[in-house]
Protein backbone atom coordinates (compact mmCIF):
# COMPACT_ATOMS: atom_id res chain seq x y z
CA UNK A 1 0.00 0.00 0.00
CA UNK A 2 2.80 2.40 0.96
CA UNK A 3 4.68 1.59 -2.25
CA UNK A 4 1.56 2.33 -4.27
CA UNK A 5 1.10 5.64 -2.46
CA UNK A 6 4.74 6.58 -3.02
CA UNK A 7 4.52 5.64 -6.69
CA UNK A 8 1.39 7.74 -7.11
CA UNK A 9 2.99 10.70 -5.35
CA UNK A 10 6.15 10.34 -7.41
CA UNK A 11 4.11 10.19 -10.61
CA UNK A 12 2.14 13.23 -9.54
CA UNK A 13 5.30 15.14 -8.66
CA UNK A 14 6.94 14.14 -11.94
CA UNK A 15 3.86 15.18 -13.89
CA UNK A 16 3.66 18.49 -12.08
CA UNK A 17 7.33 19.16 -12.82
CA UNK A 18 7.11 17.98 -16.40
CA UNK A 19 4.51 20.56 -17.37
CA UNK A 20 6.59 23.70 -16.73
CA UNK A 21 9.67 22.11 -18.27
CA UNK A 22 7.80 21.12 -21.40
CA UNK A 23 6.20 24.53 -21.67
CA UNK A 24 9.50 26.27 -21.12
CA UNK A 25 10.85 24.68 -24.26
CA UNK A 26 7.86 25.50 -26.44
CA UNK A 27 6.42 28.79 -25.24
CA UNK A 28 7.80 32.12 -26.30
CA UNK A 29 8.93 34.54 -23.61
CA UNK A 30 8.12 38.18 -23.97
CA UNK A 31 9.54 41.30 -22.41
CA UNK A 32 9.69 45.00 -23.10
CA UNK A 33 12.58 47.47 -23.13
CA UNK A 34 12.55 51.21 -23.70
CA UNK A 35 15.25 52.77 -25.88
CA UNK A 36 16.42 56.36 -25.94
CA UNK A 37 18.81 57.47 -28.75
CA UNK A 38 22.23 58.64 -27.55
CA UNK A 39 24.25 59.00 -30.74
CA UNK A 40 24.23 58.71 -34.52
CA UNK A 41 26.84 58.70 -37.26
CA UNK A 42 25.78 58.98 -40.87
CA UNK A 43 28.29 57.85 -43.49
CA UNK A 44 27.69 59.41 -46.89
CA UNK A 45 28.99 57.21 -49.69
CA UNK A 46 28.00 59.50 -52.56
CA UNK A 47 31.43 59.16 -54.21
CA UNK A 48 31.37 55.34 -54.05
CA UNK A 49 27.84 55.31 -55.44
CA UNK A 50 28.73 57.61 -58.32
CA UNK A 51 31.88 55.63 -59.10
CA UNK A 52 29.91 52.39 -58.87
CA UNK A 53 27.39 53.63 -61.41
CA UNK A 54 30.20 53.83 -64.01
CA UNK A 55 32.81 51.35 -62.86
CA UNK A 56 31.11 48.11 -61.91
CA UNK A 57 31.47 44.42 -62.69
CA UNK A 58 28.18 44.13 -64.55
CA UNK A 59 27.59 43.81 -68.21
CA UNK A 60 25.73 47.05 -68.96
CA UNK A 61 23.11 45.11 -70.95
CA UNK A 62 22.20 42.93 -68.00
CA UNK A 63 21.68 45.70 -65.46
CA UNK A 64 18.06 45.50 -64.30
CA UNK A 65 17.26 49.22 -64.20
CA UNK A 66 19.35 52.31 -63.68
CA UNK A 67 19.57 53.39 -60.06
CA UNK A 68 16.85 55.96 -60.62
CA UNK A 69 14.77 53.84 -58.29
CA UNK A 70 17.19 54.94 -55.62
CA UNK A 71 14.63 57.30 -54.21
CA UNK A 72 15.92 57.79 -50.69
CA UNK A 73 15.53 61.28 -49.38
CA UNK A 74 18.53 63.61 -49.30
CA UNK A 75 21.41 62.14 -47.37
CA UNK A 76 20.02 58.64 -47.19
CA UNK A 77 20.46 56.99 -50.53
CA UNK A 78 21.31 53.42 -51.44
CA UNK A 79 24.67 52.39 -50.04
CA UNK A 80 24.90 55.08 -47.37
CA UNK A 81 25.37 53.82 -43.83
CA UNK A 82 24.19 54.87 -40.41
CA UNK A 83 25.21 53.83 -36.92
CA UNK A 84 22.81 54.59 -34.08
CA UNK A 85 23.39 54.05 -30.37
CA UNK A 86 20.62 53.82 -27.80
CA UNK A 87 20.38 53.51 -24.04
CA UNK A 88 18.03 50.79 -22.81
CA UNK A 89 15.67 51.12 -19.87
CA UNK A 90 13.39 48.66 -18.10
CA UNK A 91 10.66 51.21 -17.41
CA UNK A 92 8.61 53.70 -19.37
CA UNK A 93 9.86 56.62 -17.26
CA UNK A 94 13.45 55.85 -18.23
CA UNK A 95 14.57 55.62 -14.59
CA UNK A 96 16.07 52.11 -14.61
CA UNK A 97 18.88 51.75 -17.18
CA UNK A 98 19.55 48.14 -18.14
CA UNK A 99 21.96 48.36 -21.05
CA UNK A 100 22.63 49.72 -24.51
CA UNK A 101 21.88 48.99 -28.14
CA UNK A 102 23.55 49.65 -31.47
CA UNK A 103 21.90 49.66 -34.89
CA UNK A 104 24.29 49.45 -37.85
CA UNK A 105 22.28 50.19 -40.98
CA UNK A 106 22.93 50.18 -44.72
CA UNK A 107 20.37 52.22 -46.60
CA UNK A 108 18.90 50.68 -49.72
CA UNK A 109 15.96 51.76 -51.82
CA UNK A 110 12.67 53.49 -51.14
CA UNK A 111 13.70 54.97 -47.79
CA UNK A 112 14.48 51.64 -46.25
CA UNK A 113 17.62 50.34 -44.55
CA UNK A 114 18.91 46.91 -43.63
CA UNK A 115 19.95 47.00 -40.00
CA UNK A 116 21.96 44.76 -37.73
CA UNK A 117 20.99 45.44 -34.15
CA UNK A 118 22.81 44.44 -30.97
CA UNK A 119 21.19 44.72 -27.54
CA UNK A 120 23.50 44.44 -24.57
CA UNK A 121 22.20 43.99 -21.02
CA UNK A 122 23.66 42.48 -17.84
CA UNK A 123 21.90 39.21 -18.77
CA UNK A 124 23.63 38.92 -22.13
CA UNK A 125 23.48 40.10 -25.71
CA UNK A 126 20.81 39.70 -28.37
CA UNK A 127 21.21 40.09 -32.11
CA UNK A 128 18.53 41.09 -34.57
CA UNK A 129 18.56 41.90 -38.23
CA UNK A 130 16.28 43.03 -41.01
CA UNK A 131 14.67 45.93 -42.84
CA UNK A 132 13.75 49.19 -41.18
CA UNK A 133 11.64 51.90 -42.78
CA UNK A 134 12.86 55.45 -42.30
CA UNK A 135 9.42 57.01 -42.02
CA UNK A 136 9.07 56.26 -38.32
CA UNK A 137 6.84 53.25 -38.86
CA UNK A 138 6.91 50.22 -36.58
CA UNK A 139 9.97 48.06 -37.13
CA UNK A 140 9.71 44.27 -36.89
CA UNK A 141 13.06 42.46 -36.94
CA UNK A 142 13.87 38.77 -36.59
CA UNK A 143 16.00 38.01 -33.52
CA UNK A 144 18.74 35.70 -34.74
CA UNK A 145 20.76 34.79 -31.64
CA UNK A 146 22.36 35.89 -28.44
CA UNK A 147 24.80 35.25 -25.63
CA UNK A 148 24.54 34.65 -21.88
CA UNK A 149 20.93 34.13 -20.87
CA UNK A 150 19.97 34.84 -24.46
CA UNK A 151 22.23 32.16 -25.95
CA UNK A 152 20.38 30.54 -28.85
CA UNK A 153 17.63 33.16 -28.69
CA UNK A 154 15.30 33.24 -31.65
CA UNK A 155 12.17 35.18 -32.35
CA UNK A 156 11.28 38.73 -33.23
CA UNK A 157 11.25 42.23 -31.86
CA UNK A 158 8.76 44.99 -32.54
CA UNK A 159 9.94 48.55 -32.11
CA UNK A 160 7.52 51.46 -32.12
CA UNK A 161 7.39 54.98 -30.76
CA UNK A 162 6.57 54.95 -27.05
CA UNK A 163 3.48 56.93 -26.18
CA UNK A 164 4.80 57.90 -22.74
CA UNK A 165 8.04 59.68 -23.68
CA UNK A 166 9.06 61.67 -26.71
CA UNK A 167 11.90 60.35 -28.85
CA UNK A 168 11.73 56.96 -27.14
CA UNK A 169 11.17 53.55 -28.65
CA UNK A 170 9.22 50.77 -26.99
CA UNK A 171 10.83 47.49 -28.02
CA UNK A 172 8.86 44.31 -27.43
CA UNK A 173 10.86 41.07 -27.64
CA UNK A 174 9.29 37.66 -28.22
CA UNK A 175 11.81 34.86 -27.97
CA UNK A 176 11.74 31.07 -28.06
Amino acid at each position, binding site marked *: *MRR*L*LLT*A*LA*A*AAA*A*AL*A*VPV*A*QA*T*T*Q*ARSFVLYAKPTGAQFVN*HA*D*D*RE*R*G*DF*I*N*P*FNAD*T*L*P*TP*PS*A*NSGKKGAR*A*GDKGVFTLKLFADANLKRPVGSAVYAC*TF*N*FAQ*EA*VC*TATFETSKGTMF*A*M*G*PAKLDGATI*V*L*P*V*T*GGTGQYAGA*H*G*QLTSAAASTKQNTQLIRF*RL*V
Partner: protein
Amino acid sequence: MMRPLLTRVLLTAVVLLATALPASAASGAARAPQKITVYAVPATVQFMNHADDRLRGMSTNPFSLKEQAVILNANGQQKGNGPFPGDDMLYAFTIYGDAKRSAKIGTAMFTCYFQIAKRATCEAYFDLASGLVLASGQVPFGAKRFTLGVTGGTRSYFGALGQAVSAPSTGNAQRFDLSVTASPR
Protein backbone atom coordinates in the same frame (compact mmCIF):
# COMPACT_ATOMS: atom_id res chain seq x y z
CA MET B 1 -9.18 6.43 6.57
CA MET B 2 -6.26 5.35 4.39
CA ARG B 3 -8.37 4.31 1.42
CA PRO B 4 -10.08 7.70 0.71
CA LEU B 5 -6.70 9.46 0.97
CA LEU B 6 -5.12 6.98 -1.42
CA THR B 7 -7.99 7.37 -3.86
CA ARG B 8 -7.63 11.16 -3.73
CA VAL B 9 -3.86 10.95 -4.28
CA LEU B 10 -4.29 8.57 -7.19
CA LEU B 11 -6.97 10.76 -8.74
CA THR B 12 -4.73 13.83 -8.37
CA ALA B 13 -1.88 11.91 -9.98
CA VAL B 14 -4.08 10.87 -12.90
CA VAL B 15 -5.32 14.43 -13.42
CA LEU B 16 -1.79 15.81 -13.29
CA LEU B 17 -0.55 13.19 -15.72
CA ALA B 18 -3.44 13.90 -18.07
CA THR B 19 -2.64 17.62 -18.08
CA ALA B 20 1.06 16.93 -18.54
CA LEU B 21 0.68 14.68 -21.56
CA PRO B 22 -0.48 17.21 -24.18
CA ALA B 23 2.31 19.63 -23.26
CA SER B 24 4.94 16.89 -23.47
CA ALA B 25 3.56 15.66 -26.75
CA ALA B 26 3.55 19.18 -28.15
CA SER B 27 7.14 19.77 -27.16
CA GLY B 28 8.28 16.44 -28.57
CA ALA B 29 6.60 16.88 -31.93
CA ALA B 30 9.12 18.30 -34.36
CA ARG B 31 7.62 20.76 -36.83
CA ALA B 32 7.92 19.69 -40.45
CA PRO B 33 9.88 22.13 -42.60
CA GLN B 34 7.72 24.41 -44.71
CA LYS B 35 8.68 24.37 -48.40
CA ILE B 36 8.24 27.61 -50.31
CA THR B 37 9.38 28.14 -53.88
CA VAL B 38 9.62 31.69 -55.16
CA TYR B 39 10.97 33.31 -58.31
CA ALA B 40 13.05 36.47 -57.96
CA VAL B 41 13.39 38.96 -60.80
CA PRO B 42 15.97 41.75 -60.39
CA ALA B 43 14.30 45.13 -59.98
CA THR B 44 17.08 47.53 -59.00
CA VAL B 45 20.78 47.28 -58.34
CA GLN B 46 23.28 49.67 -56.80
CA PHE B 47 26.98 48.88 -56.90
CA MET B 48 29.19 50.76 -54.45
CA ASN B 49 32.76 51.10 -55.72
CA HIS B 50 35.03 51.72 -52.74
CA ALA B 51 38.24 52.21 -54.76
CA ASP B 52 39.15 55.42 -52.92
CA ASP B 53 38.54 53.88 -49.50
CA ARG B 54 40.63 50.87 -50.47
CA LEU B 55 43.47 53.08 -51.67
CA ARG B 56 43.30 55.19 -48.51
CA GLY B 57 43.20 52.02 -46.42
CA MET B 58 46.47 50.83 -47.90
CA SER B 59 48.34 53.75 -46.38
CA THR B 60 46.20 54.78 -43.43
CA ASN B 61 45.03 51.83 -41.37
CA PRO B 62 45.02 50.54 -37.78
CA PHE B 63 47.48 47.69 -38.40
CA SER B 64 51.08 47.44 -37.23
CA LEU B 65 53.89 47.44 -39.80
CA LYS B 66 54.19 43.67 -39.50
CA GLU B 67 50.50 43.17 -40.05
CA GLN B 68 50.49 45.51 -43.03
CA ALA B 69 52.36 42.89 -45.02
CA VAL B 70 49.09 41.00 -45.54
CA ILE B 71 47.17 44.00 -46.83
CA LEU B 72 46.31 43.59 -50.46
CA ASN B 73 47.73 46.23 -52.73
CA ALA B 74 46.94 47.19 -56.26
CA ASN B 75 50.07 45.46 -57.59
CA GLY B 76 48.26 44.12 -60.63
CA GLN B 77 45.61 42.35 -58.57
CA GLN B 78 42.83 44.86 -58.99
CA LYS B 79 42.58 45.12 -62.74
CA GLY B 80 39.16 45.38 -64.30
CA ASN B 81 35.98 46.51 -62.67
CA GLY B 82 35.89 44.27 -59.64
CA PRO B 83 34.17 43.55 -57.41
CA PHE B 84 37.10 44.06 -55.04
CA PRO B 85 37.35 43.71 -51.27
CA GLY B 86 35.29 46.36 -49.55
CA ASP B 87 32.86 46.94 -52.42
CA ASP B 88 29.25 46.32 -51.66
CA MET B 89 26.16 45.79 -53.71
CA LEU B 90 22.46 46.21 -53.10
CA TYR B 91 20.12 44.07 -55.13
CA ALA B 92 16.34 44.48 -55.02
CA PHE B 93 14.09 41.76 -56.43
CA THR B 94 10.42 41.39 -57.19
CA ILE B 95 9.16 38.03 -55.99
CA TYR B 96 6.69 35.90 -57.92
CA GLY B 97 4.94 32.72 -56.88
CA ASP B 98 5.44 30.94 -60.20
CA ALA B 99 7.92 30.80 -63.04
CA LYS B 100 5.47 32.50 -65.41
CA ARG B 101 5.49 35.55 -63.13
CA SER B 102 1.71 35.68 -63.05
CA ALA B 103 1.38 37.11 -59.54
CA LYS B 104 3.72 39.28 -57.54
CA ILE B 105 3.86 37.95 -53.99
CA GLY B 106 6.56 40.09 -52.40
CA THR B 107 10.00 41.59 -52.62
CA ALA B 108 13.52 40.55 -51.69
CA MET B 109 16.62 42.52 -50.89
CA PHE B 110 20.22 41.31 -50.99
CA THR B 111 23.00 43.34 -49.37
CA CYS B 112 26.36 41.85 -50.33
CA TYR B 113 29.77 42.82 -48.95
CA PHE B 114 32.67 41.67 -51.09
CA GLN B 115 35.76 40.12 -49.61
CA ILE B 116 38.63 38.41 -51.37
CA ALA B 117 38.42 36.56 -54.72
CA LYS B 118 35.11 38.13 -55.78
CA ARG B 119 33.20 36.36 -53.01
CA ALA B 120 30.59 38.20 -51.02
CA THR B 121 28.85 37.72 -47.72
CA CYS B 122 25.22 38.41 -48.48
CA GLU B 123 22.42 39.24 -46.11
CA ALA B 124 19.04 38.77 -47.67
CA TYR B 125 15.43 39.05 -46.72
CA PHE B 126 12.32 37.84 -48.48
CA ASP B 127 9.37 40.07 -47.62
CA LEU B 128 6.29 37.91 -48.24
CA ALA B 129 2.63 38.47 -47.37
CA SER B 130 2.77 36.14 -44.39
CA GLY B 131 6.01 37.45 -42.95
CA LEU B 132 9.69 38.04 -43.45
CA VAL B 133 12.34 35.35 -43.99
CA LEU B 134 15.92 36.32 -43.22
CA ALA B 135 18.86 34.50 -44.84
CA SER B 136 22.60 34.97 -45.15
CA GLY B 137 25.65 33.29 -46.60
CA GLN B 138 28.46 33.32 -49.11
CA VAL B 139 27.80 34.08 -52.76
CA PRO B 140 30.56 34.14 -55.40
CA PHE B 141 30.04 37.02 -57.82
CA GLY B 142 28.00 35.92 -60.82
CA ALA B 143 27.07 32.58 -59.27
CA LYS B 144 23.67 31.30 -60.29
CA ARG B 145 23.61 28.45 -57.79
CA PHE B 146 24.21 29.08 -54.13
CA THR B 147 22.70 28.24 -50.76
CA LEU B 148 21.97 30.62 -47.92
CA GLY B 149 21.19 29.76 -44.33
CA VAL B 150 17.81 30.95 -43.05
CA THR B 151 18.56 32.65 -39.75
CA GLY B 152 15.23 34.05 -38.65
CA GLY B 153 11.85 35.40 -39.57
CA THR B 154 8.78 37.26 -38.43
CA ARG B 155 5.03 36.53 -38.12
CA SER B 156 4.35 33.18 -39.86
CA TYR B 157 8.10 32.60 -40.00
CA PHE B 158 8.66 33.51 -36.34
CA GLY B 159 11.97 32.02 -35.19
CA ALA B 160 12.50 30.43 -38.59
CA LEU B 161 15.56 28.31 -39.34
CA GLY B 162 16.45 26.43 -42.50
CA GLN B 163 17.98 27.16 -45.87
CA ALA B 164 17.34 28.88 -49.19
CA VAL B 165 18.66 27.14 -52.29
CA SER B 166 19.03 29.30 -55.38
CA ALA B 167 19.11 28.10 -58.99
CA PRO B 168 18.65 29.85 -62.34
CA SER B 169 15.15 30.00 -63.77
CA THR B 170 13.75 31.30 -67.03
CA GLY B 171 15.01 34.64 -68.32
CA ASN B 172 16.80 36.66 -65.70
CA ALA B 173 14.86 35.12 -62.82
CA GLN B 174 16.35 33.16 -59.95
CA ARG B 175 14.43 30.34 -58.32
CA PHE B 176 14.64 30.09 -54.53
CA ASP B 177 13.57 26.95 -52.72
CA LEU B 178 13.05 27.95 -49.11
CA SER B 179 12.94 25.18 -46.53
CA VAL B 180 11.86 26.81 -43.30
CA THR B 181 11.04 25.45 -39.87
CA ALA B 182 9.27 28.11 -37.84
CA SER B 183 8.97 28.06 -34.06
CA PRO B 184 5.64 27.92 -32.22
CA ARG B 185 4.45 31.47 -31.52
